[in-house]
């Protein structure tokens, strides 16, 4: 039973990681790629960590895994935000792919960031 759960979580996690990889490869511009990368990347790793936790349910392992998961949850959005900010400000936006752009206007006066 536990083995089955471990297997399921590992498979789901690997699947999410794979979708991150495929998204990175196939999506048309930097921002859509970032959507795929940041979300699936974190989900994939968290699912694998849950699988590992089910396989080794001891306090030493679980505390380490909890810390790894916590650091992922905190750092992945930070990295994604900084990359997105840098990308927008250095002109990596493909305007043809945008319907509305409310940040362009906001950046015109000297930014406060």
């Amino acid at each position, binding site marked *: 039973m536990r083995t089955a759960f471990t297997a399921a979580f590992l498979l789901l996690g690997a699947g999410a990681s794979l979708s991150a990889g495929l998204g990175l490869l196939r999506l048309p511009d930097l921002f859509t790629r970032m*959507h795929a990368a940041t979300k699936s990347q974190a989900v994939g790793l968290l699912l694998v960590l849950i699988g590992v936790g089910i396989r080794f349910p001891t306090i*030493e392992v679980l505390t380490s895994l909890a810390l790894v998961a916590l650091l992922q949850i905190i750092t992945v959005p930070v990295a994604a935000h900084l990359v997105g900010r840098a990308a927008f400000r250095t002109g990596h936006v493909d305007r043809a792919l945008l319907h509305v752009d409310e940040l362009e206007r906001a950046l015109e006066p000297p930014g406060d960031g």
Partner: protein
Amino acid sequence: MREFTVRAGRRRAIRLPALVWLTVVWMLLWDRPTVGNLLSGLVLAVLLQLAFPLPPVGPQLRLRPLGLAAFALRAAADLLHSAGPLAWQAAGGRGRAKRNSVIAVPLRTRSDLILTVMAISLSATPGTLVLDVRHSDATLFLHVLGAADDAAVAKARRDVQALERRTVRAFGTRDDLRALAEDRS
């Protein structure tokens, strides 16, 4: 939260929440909670706070169990959900790429901590990406995947404001709740 702070000089202070947090991380790092880890963690947390003073963040966080439960459930669901549509899009079901939008969402609360929690959970929400934050009037700038018309843009804005409501109900102080209520009336 002021009463949980021990001041030591003009800039230096030891804050109890930070003390607890640092000690917990220290004990997690050492694999197993023992008395030795607890004590060394506490000593280290005090030394760290004295060595690297941070500007005060003020009493901005309050944990509300019911709101917190609702917030956590929704966040977990979003996190799992967010991998789905993208996987499909990446696997080639996409056809022509849909157009996206960059929108500005003004928040009703001004708390830094609410803003931080929201930015983190937004990056777990399907289809949104935080591009920039304007601190002066607490405005988030988001890249919204697949928002190709005005209706989709309006829906994205409503979703973010719903997230703000959930976040404030989970973590907000009384002032935050009031700011939220005033705006809706």
